[in-house]
């Protein structure tokens, strides 16, 4: 492996994180909080180390898939560890495990928390928690690609490891331009939401933090009751934007480049909206008796469905008290997740489309054993390699899921809590059911279980393999010197 290039990129990551930490410093300055100091110390330290590394640009910038995956995994771990330090320094979250859990949950856009009283935190810390969502939503490396001129064409290997979805398509020929467009779309949509929320009566701090959580499909709120006490208008804005951020960003790119017809032809986006529609309708009918008014029923149903399928995790109602049918649908949506190429997590709609088509093909091949059928999406044949990788992804997913479930089961909690806790972390959602339901949090679990959850969150955000690759010894082998 080419260590020098991996370290070089990690240096950049530290610099970027240091720059990002200036924002909570600014917030602390505005509100006159001393908590800004913790961020300042960490930022200065990270910037120093980062800059020293970056100044030594390696000669050999060769970047293969292996380096791409390892760099991505390590970047996210470093981001999380550095990001957790201010919480400890400021005494907001005194224990390292808890602080790390909170930060990993932030960067991976999960939104699970171990805090029972969020409102007790300083503004700076709250802002940082939400801002990690925004950074993690589109990915730091994608951002790095947009600003850093990387020599050689293999920087696609970085993007591949960080972008959600079975196959990463470029919007335009260059990785760097693609990364730029993605961030531009992301940024503009976030700004629109902020403006709409400001219009709806939120103060700038609230509008920004809540928008960060929506944009990254994160879900950490600045209030103890998530956003249940927000106005109807605010809930609708947040709900609609959650759903929009769960759409494949190719859709928006096609829209702004004027290819509107082509945009609406994207099969994944269509299926995504159909799933949302069916789920919202079913749940609405199911919970109508409980809530009473039609408007509120639709609003709560839509918000919860949107929040879960996009893996955001905000809540306007405690769905733990809903009937079994509604709860079951929501748990199923947890696994489906958002579109590939969005900021959401989960297994992804496109993978499910392909898997459903594979099953149909298999059934046909039982009826007509000699039949030949290619699986197509939007008139494009899905190659054998892609099919294989989707199947393997699913298998790996189930293995990680089961092992995690087994590991945390020693705590003797009920099955629903354990199952939904793992589902909520590996799919980057946030809240589960029962003991980890929308009104509860993860503080009841032991430190060991929290590390299991952190692993799940990172694995889920980075599409499993980059993190798994870290555990493979052959990755760490050095190049042999020629005698």
């Amino acid at each position, binding site marked *: 492996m080419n260590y020098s290039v991996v370290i070089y990129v990690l240096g950049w990551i530290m610099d970027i994180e240091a720059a990002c930490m200036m924002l909570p410093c600014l917030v602390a300055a505005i509100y006159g909080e001393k908590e800004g100091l913790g961020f300042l110390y960490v930022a200065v330290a990270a910037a120093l180390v980062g800059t020293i590394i970056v100044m030594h640009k390696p000669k050999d910038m060769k970047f293969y898939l292996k380096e791409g995956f390892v760099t991505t995994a390590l970047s996210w771990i470093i981001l999380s560890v550095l990001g957790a330090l201010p919480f400890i320094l400021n005494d907001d979250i005194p224990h390292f495990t808890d602080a790390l859990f909170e930060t990993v949950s932030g960067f991976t856009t999960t939104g699970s928390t171990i805090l029972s009283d969020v409102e007790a935190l300083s503004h700076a810390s709250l802002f940082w928690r939400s801002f990690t969502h925004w950074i993690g939503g589109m990915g730091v490396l994608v951002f790095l690609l*947009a*600003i850093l001129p990387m020599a050689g*064409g*293999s*920087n*696609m290997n970085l993007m591949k490891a960080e972008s959600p979805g079975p196959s990463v398509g*470029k919007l*335009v*020929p*260059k*990785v*760097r*331009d693609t990364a*730029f*467009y993605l961030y*531009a779309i992301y940024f503009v949509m976030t700004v629109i939401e902020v403006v709409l929320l400001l219009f709806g009566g939120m103060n700038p701090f609230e509008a920004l933090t809540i928008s960060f959580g929506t944009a990254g499909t994160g879900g950490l709120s600045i209030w103890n009751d998530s956003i249940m006490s927000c106005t109807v208008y605010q809930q609708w804005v947040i709900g609609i934007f959650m759903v929009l951020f769960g759409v494949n960003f190719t859709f928006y790119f096609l829209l*702004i480049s004027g290819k509107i017809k082509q945009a609406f032809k994207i099969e994944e986006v269509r299926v995504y909206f159909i799933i949302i529609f069916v789920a919202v309708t079913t749940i609405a009918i199911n919970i109508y008796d409980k809530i009473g008014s039609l408007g509120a029923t639709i609003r709560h149903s839509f918000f919860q469905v949107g929040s879960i399928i996009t893996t955001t995790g905000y809540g306007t109602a405690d769905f733990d008290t809903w009937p079994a049918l509604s709860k079951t649908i929501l748990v199923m949506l947890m696994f489906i997740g958002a579109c590939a190429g969005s900021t959401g997590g989960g297994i992804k709609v496109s993978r499910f489309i392909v898997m459903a088509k594979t099953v149909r093909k298999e059934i046909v091949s039982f009826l007509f054993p000699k039949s030949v059928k290619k699986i197509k999406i939007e008139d494009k044949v899905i*190659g054998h390699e892609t099919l294989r990788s989707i199947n393997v992804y699913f298998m790996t997913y189930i293995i990680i899921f089961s092992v995690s479930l087994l590991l945390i089961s020693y705590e003797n909690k009920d099955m629903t809590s354990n199952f939904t806790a793992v589902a909520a972390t590996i799919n980057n959602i946030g809240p589960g059911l029962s003991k980890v339901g929308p009104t509860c949090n993860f503080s009841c679990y032991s430190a060991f279980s929290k590390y299991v959850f952190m692993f799940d969150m990172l694995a889920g955000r980075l599409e499993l393999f980059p993190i798994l690759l870290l555990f493979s010894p052959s990755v760490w082998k050095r190049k042999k010197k020629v005698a």
Partner: protein
Amino acid sequence: MENPFKKNRGLKIIIVGCGKVGNTLVEKLVQEKHDITVIDTNSDLVDRVSETYDVMGIAGNGFSYRVLLDAGINETDVLIAVTESDELNMLCCTIANQVGHCATIARVRNPDYSDELAYLRSKLGISLIINPELETAREIARLLRLPMAEEINAFTKGHAELIKFKLPDGNVLDGSHISDIRNYNSQLLVCGVERSGELVIPDGSFVLRGQDYITFIATPINTQNFFKKIDIDTHQVKNCMIIGGGKSSYYLAKQLTEMNIDVKIVEINMKRCEELSALIPKALIICGDGTDESVLREAGIEEADSVVPLTGLDEENILITLFARQFTAAKVITKIKRSSFHDVIDNLDMGSILYPRYMISETIIGHVRATQNGIGSNIEMLYHIFDNKAEAIEFNTEKNSPVVGKALMELKLKDNLLVACINRNGKIIIPKGDDVIQENDKVVIVTTHTGFKDLKDILK
């Protein structure tokens, strides 16, 4: 919406066909920061290219209107068709011309078309047609005319040549300073010396040694003159043995017979031998396996002045070359089609080596850079020299160019750059510090920088 972090805008280029040449083109053009989309029907090839290089890949038929639209032909600046089929390449360019408004480049290699290229170009509206085999043959013929040169690149329509030769041990120049060359001929400029793989851009005090590869620029007459003075034979070869009877062999044999060089072609396929015999009556065609040592000896390889292996396989060509260099005194020129083991090849001491795919990409890149420059091409010629470590480029001088009218020593030139030669209405000037570039001059520069598009790029 444009990426503000991007400095200079590249061109939007579509390359149809991901073969050897397609790949080399992608490699070179990506370095020049163009936006590239590749199209090929073979999705494996497309995947491989788009995974190795920063380009967009489309699996599909590049001659289809819809696929071209998908690839964004409307906004494309240059389309390059380099698939296996000549006809499809031309068709592709024609379609692209109809749909978009881009410059088109086609590879056409069939000898049947070789005399009609100008006609096809104008009728089909193709900006550039390249024939790799013909270019290779031309290059080989040039080398056979001056056999002691390892490399010859012609500038300003042959008025000036960039020549690389190996200094024999014990030559009069062995151990002398570069500045001493003036005593033999004042009208030449040494551009670079390669010693055991290291390239040096030398100054006057540099001491030459035997086995150095020296590259200089001069007019053909001065070259002859110089070689005569330092006692190196400059006669063109009297005969040539070509092994393999493919398209390049045909082009080469045709040119050599016109230069009154005796040609022998060893070809294994009887039918092809008969064809060749009909096409080039002056040549002696020998039907036999060119990779068989006894066949070669029987055909008289030991008496040959020059040997050119042109079989379809690089490995065979390299073996034949090694054999010929070891057991004969012939000048050997090797063509290498693919082979990525450059370092190994460099260590083999094979003499002159030609890489057709680099030659093609040189031509195309020269054309692309000229296109990028807007109306009228300022680049006349572009060569990659010193194993791709440097470029030699011939520019036209524009009217209001900032380099005009000042003595060279007053211009703030970039480092690692040499103004090698000026062609003023056919008169070749090897410039010194007090020479001045004038309007409409053709100027040859040698530089290790890449991406020069205009003469003014030489300034800091």
